[in-house]
């Protein structure tokens, strides 16, 4: 359970910290590239990166062979 002290911390006092953190590690670059995805991908090993590609390929293959939805499912 939260203490009353925690619950009464003014929101404005924490905003500069959040803003500073966001400025230090921007989420997007000037082209709109999501840098959090870039950083996540870089945190993986090459084998894990290949597995991600493989999972995508298999997902696409399963979509291709999936039967069309029946009328009752529409």
């Amino acid at each position, binding site marked *: 359970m939260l203490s009353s002290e925690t619950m009464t911390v003014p929101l404005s006092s924490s905003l500069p910290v959040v803003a500073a953190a966001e400025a230090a590690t921007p989420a997007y670059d000037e082209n709109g590239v999501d840098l959090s995805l870039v950083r996540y991908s*870089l945190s*993986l090993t090459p*084998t894990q990166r*290949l597995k*991600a*590609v493989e999972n995508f*390929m*298999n997902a696409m293959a*399963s979509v291709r062979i999936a039967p069309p939805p029946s009328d009752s499912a529409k």
Partner: protein
Amino acid sequence: MAVFDLGRLLLVLSEEQVEFIIVGGVAAALQGAPVLTQDVDILYRIEQGNLERLERALSRLHAVARGDARNLPFGKSHLMTTGHKLAMTDAGALDVLGSINDSVLYDDLVGSSDELEVTGQRVKVLSLRRLIELKRALARPKDLAMLPVLEATLREREGCTSGP
């Protein structure tokens, strides 16, 4: 249902000692770019012995021409050419390239590749910097569309102390 197994694809190529470099979207992904693709592109060395090894590897993978109902396998005479051979194997879609843009060969890029350990195999993967240069030179819409992600990845990597 086909279940793609890229680890097996690399294993067979490595076991047959095929000289090749992973290029294209999978190279970008292996180098850390958050991109997804539906096939593996390899650039192989056009040399008699390597063509025999590649033919053996493709045979083990049951490679046939993709999109051709005749399910034709790839022979050595076909592999001798610098063109692109688009294959479907039992481990996944594989584009087997004798050259890039009919001008860039294996020997031109092998010095710009990194050797990475992937699923237990040491494989040559085109460097991110060279991949960006190639895509800039090709300048096709699909290549240019990928450039911002590749360049952002390169910038982030250069800001990091860890390698690929």
